[in-house]
C-alpha cells in the first residue's frame, strides 16, 4: 500500500465518494414527489444509504489527502471540474423510468465493485465497502424489481423504460473501463479489478433485462468520463444548489 502515490489513492476514494454523493443528491430531489408513498420511502432509504456511504468515503479521502479537508469542505467547497463522480449519477431524475434505470445500472455496478473492495488492502476502504455492500444488495433488489415491473408492465411503461436505458447507456461506458488510477489501485491491492467487475455487471444486467423483457442498448463510442472530471451541463447546477449556503456564508458553522 505504501508504494502507491498518495494522490492516486485519494482520487480513487474521492471518485467513489462523489458518485454516491451526487446520486444521493439527485434522489433527495425526489423525496415527497415520488409516484406513490411507498416509493417516497424507498427512494429516501436509498438516498440515505448512499449519503451515509459518501460521508464515510469523503472523510477517508480527506485523511488520505492530508490537507485537513473534512467531508463538508470536500462536498461544498470544490468546483465542478474537481468532482469525479461517474456522469451516470448526475443525470436528471427524468420520469420514474429514468430514475429506476439509472439506479439499476449503478447498483449493479456498485454491488460488483464493493464486493471486491470489501477485500481491499486499505482497511478503512474495506470496512466501508463491507458495510455498504449490505445496503447495496437491498438497493439492487429495489431497482431491479422496479425495472422488471416497468419493462414487463404496460406498453407505456415498457417504452419509457426502454427509452431511459437508451438515454443512460453511454454513461455506463466509464464504469468498467480502467484508467491509470484504476490500474494502479488494483495493482496495489487497494482497488477493484474492473475486468472482473465488468463480467459480473454484464451478467446482472443481462439477467434482469431478460426478465424485464427489455433489450440491452448498443454501446456507442463514448470518451467523456466523469471520473476524470469531464461532466455534461447538469452537474454545475446540481452543485450550485447543493453548495449555496456554504458558498454564500463563508466560514459559518451550521
Amino acid at each position, binding site marked *: 500500500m505504501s508504494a502507491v502515490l498518495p494522490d492516486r489513492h485519494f482520487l480513487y476514494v474521492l471518485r467513489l465518494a462523489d458518485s454516491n*454523493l451526487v446520486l444521493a*443528491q439527485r434522489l*433527495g*430531489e425526489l*423525496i*415527497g*414527489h*415520488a*409516484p*406513490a*408513498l*411507498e*416509493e*417516497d*420511502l424507498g427512494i*429516501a*432509504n436509498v*438516498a*440515505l444509504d448512499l*449519503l*451515509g456511504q*459518501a*460521508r464515510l468515503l*469523503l472523510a477517508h479521502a480527506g485523511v488520505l489527502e492530508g490537507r485537513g479537508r473534512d*467531508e*463538508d469542505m470536500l*462536498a*461544498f467547497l470544490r468546483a465542478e471540474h474537481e468532482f469525479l463522480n461517474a456522469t451516470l449519477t448526475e443525470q436528471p431524475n427524468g*420520469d*420514474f423510468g429514468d430514475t429506476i434505470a439509472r439506479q439499476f445500472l449503478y447498483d449493479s455496478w456498485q454491488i460488483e465493485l464493493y464486493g471486491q473492495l470489501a477485500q481491499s488492502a486499505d482497511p478503512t476502504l474495506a470496512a466501508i465497502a463491507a458495510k455498504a455492500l449490505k445496503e447495496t444488495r437491498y438497493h439492487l433488489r429495489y431497482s431491479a424489481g422496479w425495472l*422488471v*415491473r*416497468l419493462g*414487463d*408492465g*404496460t406498453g*407505456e*411503461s415498457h417504452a*419509457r423504460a426502454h427509452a431511459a436505458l437508451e438515454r443512460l447507456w453511454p454513461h455506463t461506458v466509464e464504469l468498467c473501463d480502467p484508467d491509470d488510477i484504476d490500474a494502479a489501485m488494483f495493482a496495489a491491492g487497494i482497488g477493484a479489478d474492473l475486468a472482473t467487475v465488468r463480467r459480473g455487471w454484464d451478467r446482472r444486467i443481462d439477467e434482469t433485462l431478460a426478465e424485464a423483457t427489455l433489450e440491452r442498448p448498443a454501446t456507442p463510442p463514448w470518451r467523456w468520463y466523469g471520473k476524470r472530471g469531464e461532466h455534461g451541463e447538469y452537474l454545475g447546477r446540481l452543485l450550485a*444548489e*447543493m453548495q*449555496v*449556503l*456554504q458558498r454564500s*456564508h463563508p466560514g*459559518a*458553522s*451550521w
Partner: protein
Amino acid sequence: MDTEALERQFQARIDADERIEPKDWMPDAYRRALIRQMAQHAHSEIVGMLPEGNWITRAPTLKRKAILMAKVQDEGGHGAYLYSATETLGVTRGQLIDELLDGRARYSSIFNYPTPTWADVGAIGWLVDGAAIMNQIPLCRCSYGPYARAMVRICREESFHQRQGYDIMLQLARGSDAQRRMAQQALDRWWWPALMMFGPPDADSKHSAQSMRWKVKRFSNDELRERFIEFTTPQAEYLGLVIPQGEIDWSEFRDVLDGHGPCNRERLAARRRAHDQGRWVREAALAHAAKREARLREAV
C-alpha cells in the same frame, strides 16, 4: 338492541376509559369524525414533507442533509401509518387521497407557509413539531385504539424531530450576525401560524365539545395553546431570540384555511403532479402483478 341503547353502552365504555376497537359497534358520527380527523392528520404528514423537502438539496452540511432526509422520510412513514389506521374505519387510502387531491379534505394549514431560508427548517422542527407534540400527546390516550397506538409511535419520533429543529436554531443563534438574523426572522414568520395550529379559540371551536365527550380530544384548544407558549418562551430566551408580541390574527387563519395562504396552490399542485406523473408507474405495477399471477396459474 336499539341504537339508543347501543349509544348509551358505547358512551359508558368511553367514560370507563375503555378503548374502542375497529370491530366494536360505534355511532356513525364517531366513525365519521375519526375518519375526518385521522385522514386530515395523515394528509398533513404527506403535505408536510414539502416545505422541509424544499431544503434537502440545500442543507448546509452533509450531516444536516442526512438528518433532514430521515425526518422527511419519517413524515412519509407517519402518513402511511395513519392512512392504515384510518382504513380500519372502513375507507381506503385511495379514497382519502382522492379527497385530498380534489380539495375536499383538509390538511394542517401550517404547511401552506413557505420555507425561504434554512432557519425555517429549524423553526418548523422547533415550533411546528413542538406544537404538534402538544396536540398529539393527549391523542396517545384517545378512545379509538388504532389511532391511540399510532400516536404513541409517532410522538416518539416527533419529539426527536423537535430537538433536531431546536439544535438547528441553536447553531444559528450562536452563529454570525446573518445567521442570527435568519433565525429571528424565521421565529417571526412561524410564531403566529404555530399558535394557530391549536385551532380556533374555544368559544368558536365547532367540533370540540363532542370530541371531548368521546375522549378523542382531552384538552381545549386554548389550554394547549397556553401550555405551548409556556414551554416555548424559555426556549426562545435561551436562544436569545425575541418572541413576537401581539394578538393572533384570526382572519389570517381563516384565509389560509380557505385556500388563500402563501403556498396553498403550490402544495396541492405538487401533490397532484406527483400523483398524475406516477399514474403510469402504478398502472405498470398492477399490470405486472396481474401477468405474474396469470403465469403462476398457468404453471400450476
